[in-house]
């Protein structure tokens, strides 16, 4: 009973927050609602005894990704009126498509297969069960190949980000510290003997 109350509370908060993310006008508010959505889903994961994933979600997404995201949103000057142009024009077609999708998906998802009675009850683990250890074991044995590919994927993301943003040094006016340190007096100071001006 208690579990159900917790589940429905988190689920309701999650759905509401997710809806707000795409409907609120202010991008900063949208990002904050996304943070709320992440918190609610990490609550759901805790309920599933996936503590590691729940904590990782909060630490990585809320702690790092969303903060970065907020910085970007604040730095960009987003013109909201331009963003909303064409909303009314596309509404009829988009609306029809959305309703059709909703009905189709709804009719499939309310099938017998997805009712509670069909899903196996969770197995409760003893108190000394180590979620992180199990996850690590699966990751480094059964899923080691996908795990390595994911690592390469992250490397590509780094290379792509650098390749797309790094301006070549000759295009920047930034001074080079190693050259500044190595500079000697003779390079900068030139003594010039100026002849005294002759009077008259």
């Amino acid at each position, binding site marked *: 009973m208690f579990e159900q109350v917790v589940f429905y509370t988190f689920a309701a908060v999650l759905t509401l927050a997710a809806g707000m993310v795409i409907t609120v006008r202010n991008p900063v508010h949208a990002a904050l609602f996304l943070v709320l959505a992440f918190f609610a889903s990490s609550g759901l994961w805790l309920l599933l005894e996936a503590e590691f994933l729940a904590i990782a979600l909060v630490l990585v997404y809320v702690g790092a990704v969303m903060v970065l995201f907020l910085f970007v949103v604040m730095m960009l000057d987003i013109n909201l009126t331009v963003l909303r142009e064409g909303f009314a024009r596309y509404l009829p077609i988009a609306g029809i498509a959305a309703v059709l999708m909703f009905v189709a998906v709804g009719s499939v998802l309310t099938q017998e297969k997805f009712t509670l009675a069909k899903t196996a009850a969770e197995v409760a683990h003893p108190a000394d069960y180590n979620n992180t250890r199990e996850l690590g074991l699966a990751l480094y044995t059964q899923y080691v190949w996908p795990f390595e590919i994911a690592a390469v*994927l992250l*490397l590509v993301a780094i290379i792509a980000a650098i390749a797309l943003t790094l301006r070549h040094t000759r295009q920047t006016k930034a001074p080079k510290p190693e050259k500044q340190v190595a500079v000697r007096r003779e390079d900068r100071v030139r003594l010039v003997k100026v002849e005294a001006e002759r009077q008259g």
Partner: protein
Amino acid sequence: MTELSSVLPEATLAGLACLVLVIEVFRAPANRAATFWAAAMSVIIVLSEIAMRFPKGTTLAFNGTFRLDIMSAVLKAFVMVIVLLSFFYARDYFERRGRVVQEYYILALFATLGMMVLISAHSLLTVYLGLELLSLSMYAMVAMDRDSATASEAAMKYFVLGALASGMLLYGMSMLYGVAGTLDLGQLSAQVGSGNSHILYTFGLVFVLIGLAFKLGVVPFHMWVPDVYQGAPTPVTLFISSAPKLAAFAMAIRLLTDGLAGLAGEWRDMLMLLSVASMAIGNLVAIAQTNIKRMLAYSTVSHMGFLLLGLLAASPEGYAAAMFYAITYAVMSMGAFGAIVLLSNATSESDRLADFAGLGRRSPWIALMMLILVFSLAGVPPFAGFWAKWFVLKEVVAAQHTWLAAVAVLFSLVGAYYYLRVIKIMYFDEPDAGAVPITAGDDVRLVFSVNGVSVLLLGLLPGLLMSVCMAAMKSYAG
């Protein structure tokens, strides 16, 4: 140990790509060719490894997430050859442009790794990761030309639509996983075959197929193709339009026949819709184009529709015909974009149809090679493109879809119009007064000639490649 040796080409490529990255960082500024040669050597090393360890049967490795079979080895070998040739085209283009973008080679190597993972995928997880590795590298390659507004726009469209398609694909995969309880394609196939929860599998299939259709670029998920092909720098377009098509073909085979063979009745109908729409829209819209990159983009859409015909025959012979089609298309497409690379110069991309005017007099040899490539794309015998279409049509008729074959032939005839127009412009139009001389290097002329002659040879001896494709698919279906 056998597990490790089966992924040796992939592991080597990953290591060598990192090495090329280090070489690029520490090379002497004047030594610009170092990165190119390192990248080309890496591809050659991996190619020789694939050839030396050519598999005799099917092996699964890493708990069934990796599958090494004849099909994967053949496709990987062709991917390597095509990537190697596209490096030569790219070097020539960048050198002439005076702005060498070395990241091209590094990103292309990682994209190639993504293709290899995708070709050998035997789990929904590896299908997705391979696809993302390939796509992420390609998004970055399209955006590489930062000062060009069209390239940035193309990259943005490609990225946003690609992310949407990945989302669709993931949603479908999560549905399949939710019902079957497994990510492994072999076990998934067994679950689907058991006949339970048929409608839920079909539901997952729809979303998976949308993701697949986007990556292949078939109607109605083709909107990114013309913009990306036109906006990206020509060597990047050349890369995107050739080797990844082989990976997309492998992805279709892995998902549809490895994993969801039990739903063949459903996906056959869906593929039929996609295929007819692609052939119709691709061929009709291509007629109106004046930019040759955009024209070739619409031609890609129609060719991918044709390729789907081979898949929907749903027999080993049909898959083999589709594989033949994918390989010949990749070679032809590389050549056609290669011609644009050859004609480009320091100031212009030379991607208007008018830039080809009078090429027959300006450079008879390049024009002759382009003639072969364009005839082959149009499906004129005896070039490779004709046999590709012939084998597919034969299987479509054998599968009792005669009307589909008739539609395909009709739209190929429509397509012949805009291909032949290119030839007319090359041989019968007066050259532009302002036409600049062709300054392509000797090495890239040689590569282009090899490309054109190989299309001719494939057309004269189609049985050779076809028997390889049949062997690949026989082992696969059996």
